[in-house]
């Protein structure tokens, strides 16, 4: 059983110091594509967090009990298929049993299969040799970090739309430069939690 301090360190690292989007560059597409409104950014990140935790819960035993040590080269192909299947199952389950949640999150689910954040976090769990409980918390922290940066950035983009931007920077360039400033401010967290 991992200690409380190691869990706290994982949570702090995932949310602030090693933020999924702003320091690991995973999930940039939704970060730039779906962060126009705070509401959609929030729902998308809830869906991503859900899928990440469930995917970590399933892929960890598959790797450690089935693939390790003889078939580790199958990691990539097995993980992506497992994630695709999980996303489909979650979609079917939500559609059948929790209709309101499906209506809120359902539209983001197909986008998540090809989201590198989900595959990335399951692989990082393995690479960093985390225990089962640690990898679950790692996925949760990464999801919360994703949510924090998405919601923060959605708020900033709202302001950006009203801002007077030089002609040649309009649209995507100024969005990226704003992201650079947010990333710079997040690098101020480095050092917290070891």
């Amino acid at each position: 059983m991992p200690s409380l301090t190691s869990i706290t360190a994982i949570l702090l690292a995932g949310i602030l110091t090693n933020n999924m989007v702003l320091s690991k560059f995973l999930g940039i597409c939704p970060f730039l594509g779906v962060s126009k409104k705070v509401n959609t950014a929030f729902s998308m990140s809830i869906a991503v967090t859900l899928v990440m935790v469930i995917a970590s819960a399933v892929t960890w035993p598959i790797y450690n009990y089935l693939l390790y040590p003889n078939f580790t080269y199958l990691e990539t192909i097995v993980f992506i298929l497992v994630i695709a299947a999980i996303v489909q199952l979650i979609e079917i389950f939500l559609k059948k049993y929790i209709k309101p949640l499906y209506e809120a999150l359902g539209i983001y689910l197909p986008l998540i299969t090809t989201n590198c954040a989900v595959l990335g976090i399951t692989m990082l769990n393995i690479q960093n040799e985390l225990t089962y409980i640690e990898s679950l918390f790692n996925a949760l922290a990464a999801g919360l970090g994703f949510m924090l940066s998405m919601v923060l950035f959605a708020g900033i983009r709202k302001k950006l739309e009203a801002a007077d931007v030089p002609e040649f920077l309009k649209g995507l360039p100024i969005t990226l430069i704003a992201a650079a400033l947010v990333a710079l401010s997040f690098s101020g967290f480095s050092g917290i939690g070891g």
Partner: protein
Amino acid sequence: MQGNNLKYFTNGLITENPVLRLVLGTCPTLAVTTAAVNGIGMGVAATAVLVCSNLAISLLRNIIPDKVRIPAFITIIAGFVSVVQMLVKAFTPSIDKSLGIFLPLIVVNCIILARAEMFASKNSVLPSVLDGLGMGIGFTATLTLMGSIRELLGAGTLFGFEVTKPFIEPMTVFLLPAGGFFVFGILIALSNAVAKRKGKKVVEHLGCANCPARSSCKNADKASCEEIKKEEVKVNA
């Protein structure tokens, strides 16, 4: 016919440059370009996967049922990624180390799935291979350019050789994530300026147009998808 084939190849180099014009594959673009060598390594690995997957998918395009095509594409791509991953690990371990997790993440690189979905599944073998090769070279060139800029400004070196380091203090911020976003933003702005001068469409935002999952999600980001559809209709008309 000859001219057409050439067009498929050159398409990906400039007019539809995957990074700057289609804004695909942003994650590896930002993550690995802290040095020029990484850009080449990532680019070559992705090009190899892209050419192979385009080849395989265009050969299988009449066999794969329409409903399960996305999972089938992903499986094919994942197979080739595993092969490339093993080759890189065996022959250039230093590149493997610096690319880290982004090497296996080529599986979910939007460029590859998007080209499979938009091109290889609709065209015959030779154009698909040429399209993959052109797109791959466009991707590699852009990544190398961005890696060079960040390496030069951030470390004062180019491909590992000292260039401006003795005269100008390197600005480490360009090697940080923030520098990645900044340089990418400036490059998009430049490519937009060139596109505008030539009367081409400017990349305004990251919409659904290039999303590989677009076909499987009819509702996602509905407003912007409809806008894009309207634009497409205008272009076609």
